[in-house]
């Protein structure tokens, strides 16, 4: 089950690599078909009208093409990476604000990412997605509302029904991975 989903994640990783290495339009079309409509939905849920959401979703996918060389599969799944691009576009286009980004880590001179690191991260992302999918509908909707802009920060803070336990159990893994990567 997890393996199957990790394979799915792996496939997106290889498509991004093909866009990066060979400007492969077929691989890009696959990514576009899957992710662009989801980005559009995300933006409309966040208050954009259909026209603006369409335009921003196109921009997000164009950013994927241009920044494919910056995607690091040891640090994020493709879905997570696209989510962060879409989120930043939303803050910029809808809220007209800047978003402060953390300082980058002093990663060592990295050769090609070790395949087991890629696999570990992609499996972890798949497992988290799986755990979220299995949540009771009510809890899942709450998290979705938090991420899709329906809940303000103070509402998130007050919201006792958020099933953060699911997330917390993944944090230990993320910490271990970060420490490992920094060695």
């Amino acid at each position, binding site marked *: 089950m997890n393996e199957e989903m990790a394979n799915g994640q792996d496939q997106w990783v290889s498509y991004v690599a093909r866009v990066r290495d060979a400007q492969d*339009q077929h691989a890009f*079309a696959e990514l576009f078909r899957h992710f*662009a*409509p*989801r*980005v*559009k*939905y*995300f933006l409309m849920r966040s208050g954009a009208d259909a026209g603006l*959401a*369409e335009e921003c*979703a*196109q921009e997000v*996918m*164009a950013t994927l*093409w*241009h920044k494919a060389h910056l995607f690091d599969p040891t640090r*994020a*799944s*493709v*879905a*997570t*990476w*696209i*989510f*962060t691009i879409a*989120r930043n576009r*939303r803050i910029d286009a809808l809220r007209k*604000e*800047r*978003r*402060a*980004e*953390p*300082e*980058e*880590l002093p990663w060592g001179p*990295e*050769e090609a990412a070790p395949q087991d690191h890629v696999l570990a991260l992609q499996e972890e*992302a798949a497992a988290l*997605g799986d755990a*979220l*999918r299995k949540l009771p509908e009510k809890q899942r909707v709450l*998290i*979705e509302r*938090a*991420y*899709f*802009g329906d*809940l303000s*920060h*103070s509402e*998130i803070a007050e919201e006792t029904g958020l099933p*953060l336990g699911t*997330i917390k159990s993944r944090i230990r893994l*993320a*910490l271990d*991975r*970060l*420490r490992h990567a920094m060695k």
Partner: protein
Amino acid sequence: MTMTQTISHHLTDSLLMGYAAGNLPEAFSLVVATHISMCDECRARAATFDTVGGAMLETSDAVAMEEGSLEATMARISAALPVARGNGSTTQPGQMQGQHQRRARGILPAPLQDYVGGDLDQINWRPVGMGVRQALLPTSRSASVRLLYIPAGASVPDHGHRGLELTLVLQGAFMDGDMRFGPGDIEIATEELEHTPIAAQGADCICLAATDAPLRFRALMPRLAQPFLRI
């Protein structure tokens, strides 16, 4: 800025989730990004909250893109290419990564330097009395953020006290009751919490403080002078 293993006061899950979701006021995002720059643990936790966002995107509904959308996007890509790749750039993909590593030179972490327009020596300090200085940083109005310079042993001035208040130590330390907040530590205070931070003896303290209380346009009154009044 070097990583420290001694940070003991961290961001809450709700702040990290709000940051990952992109729902925090800009002023809070700056404090969160600055803390993450100093704290590996919160960096890893933040990455996990981003992963939740990715999983939500993956499993969410979809809205059909318009007819010809892919072609329009390819046209967008071609049009932007000369800009994106730059002519005369000889960088290889591997090197680009290094180039994009935004590392601060100096004392202040990179996200803070972006707002200050430089390092500590570029801060436009204004005196607010009792040796305390402040510098308001430009953000959207939904919350405000300022740098505070508090002489060793002096009281941290009242900077809001309503709504949510985040105070991140950049240099020196302050005490709040029994608790000590050193470099990288963040104090998260809500309206209910009665707190009276005082800069520790020995070194002057520099903090980054954000609040979503309405911005008040009068001089800050050091709490030292008004020990019993909440102003």
